[in-house]
């Protein structure tokens, strides 16, 4: 029997919207982080990132990994490498989410939705 289990329509939709953005953001930060890992991240970047992460968190709200994931605190003056690390965790959790809720099941191939 498959290890897949159910999720909601809404979460599946949110996943489809946010995952490409999250991956793109992760790639950008990874690039920045290669050049200057210790540079401070501007407030506008933090705001944009947090906006996306807020949405991503709604997808992951029932996942056990959520307790390891935080939003970025702009008062902490995070460095690029900090943000990259956080994004990598989000990407990993999102991948795990897809593995758990997407695939072939009795009704066909796709999100497992009740």
């Amino acid at each position, binding site marked *: 029997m498959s290890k897949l289990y159910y999720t909601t329509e809404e979460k599946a939709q949110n996943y489809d919207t946010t995952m490409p953005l999250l991956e793109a953001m992760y790639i950008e930060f990874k690039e920045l982080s290669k050049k*200057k890992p*210790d*540079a*401070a*991240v*501007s*407030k506008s*970047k933090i705001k944009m990132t947090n906006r996306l992460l807020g949405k991503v968190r709604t997808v992951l709200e029932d996942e056990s990994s959520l307790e390891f994931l935080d939003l970025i605190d702009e*008062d*902490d*003056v995070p460095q690029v490498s900090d943000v990259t690390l956080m994004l990598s965790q989000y990407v990993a959790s999102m991948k795990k989410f897809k593995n758990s809720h997407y695939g072939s099941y009795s009704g066909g191939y796709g999100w497992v939705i009740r």
Partner: protein
Amino acid sequence: MEIIRPRLTDHHGIHKSQADLDFAIQFFDEDLPLYVDPFLLWKSPSQQDNALHTTIINSFNHLNYLIKKKREDEAVSLLVDISECHEVGLGVSQTRRGTKISKKQAKDILNLFQDIPEYSQFGFTHFEIIQLYISGISKDRISDIACNYLKSFLIDYTIGQCEIHNIPIEGVILDSIYNYKTNKLDINQKVYLPVNPKTKEPIIFTPKRWLRFNTWINYEDYFQKYCPRDEIFNPNEPEERVKVLNFNRENYGVVEGYIEYKTKTIEDCKNDPLFSQIPILSARRKLNQILKLNTGKENGADIKYEELSASLLASLFYPHLDFAQTQSRTESGRHIRDLIFYNNRDIDFLDEIFTEYNNRQLVIEMKNVKEISRDHINQLNRYMQDNIGNFGVFLTRNPLSKAMYENTINLWSSQRKCIIAITDEDLKLMVEVYESKQRTPIEVLKKKYIEFRRACPS
């Protein structure tokens, strides 16, 4: 303890930084080392400034009229009277009181109208060039004469600014105000102006946009860039100023050429800011020098540390914190140096340290030691009271030890006094953000404060 090196705005509780105000904030005890440059008025895009320049020139050329009418004594005494304007607080005087020029000097200036036919006939277009003819006349005189001619305008300007910023004004008697209609001085005029709270002397503001460290047309610049030195001095002859001045008097064309040259490069004539940040390269260099220093006092390392940090931090915190000064004090035989900033409350963090800790100024104590000890904390703790407020900062090399950190937290718990330490690592981050312009360096200070507050018991 009183506010250190108070300015007018701090005295009246007006929390605006110099960058936010249109006029130069004056100190009570000494002059600002800047001068009103008439050339900036002439150059200004504002018609009002141009008109004021015309006022100055017309008034100055009126002296020529007086001479021609054989009223030389009147001209001399007028020129002497307008040669000093202490109310504006510009120049290098420690006491805010300068001296007037002598009658002889005034006569020398007036003689220009007779000796040089062009001035006799057409008058001056830029009166600052008298610097190139008369010895002992320099930027401070030019500035004072210009201010005196414009005093009536400046008084209105001052009152206007006081209304905008709620600075109290009171009735004072001014010795003299130049009257443009009669071309005479009105004596003992009552006007309303802000006053120096200690001496009760009136204060007149000058717009920042008119100020320069040196006038655009000045002797040093002329001598370096334009003066035909070969014609004036024989080979191996000492380069004396008097000779140049005499040469100028006989060679009107050269001076006129210099004015033309200065007018052509008018785009480069800008007002000087009261404080300019050090360039990024220099910040990085200073940081590296600090990081290389050993802790302790060996080879004067502590003095070097203080000097380097002072200029670095003053730049990093600008424009949020205006630098007041470095201050020495001796406590228990030890020499301690502080950096003192005015608190303008222009960002939430600074506002918080004003409201929660009563910090009208921010004190940063510089300690080039390996480890901050209990004694150091006690010293700073004793220092933090009244106007200095209950928020203090150590600038030191290494993070506080666990015990000392606990100590500062206990201090907060028991007396609501907050001591945070900025270390080499934080300085690195500050320079980093200064360089990348992604954040402001003062946010690093805020970050340290927030970290501290998180560690405090709620």
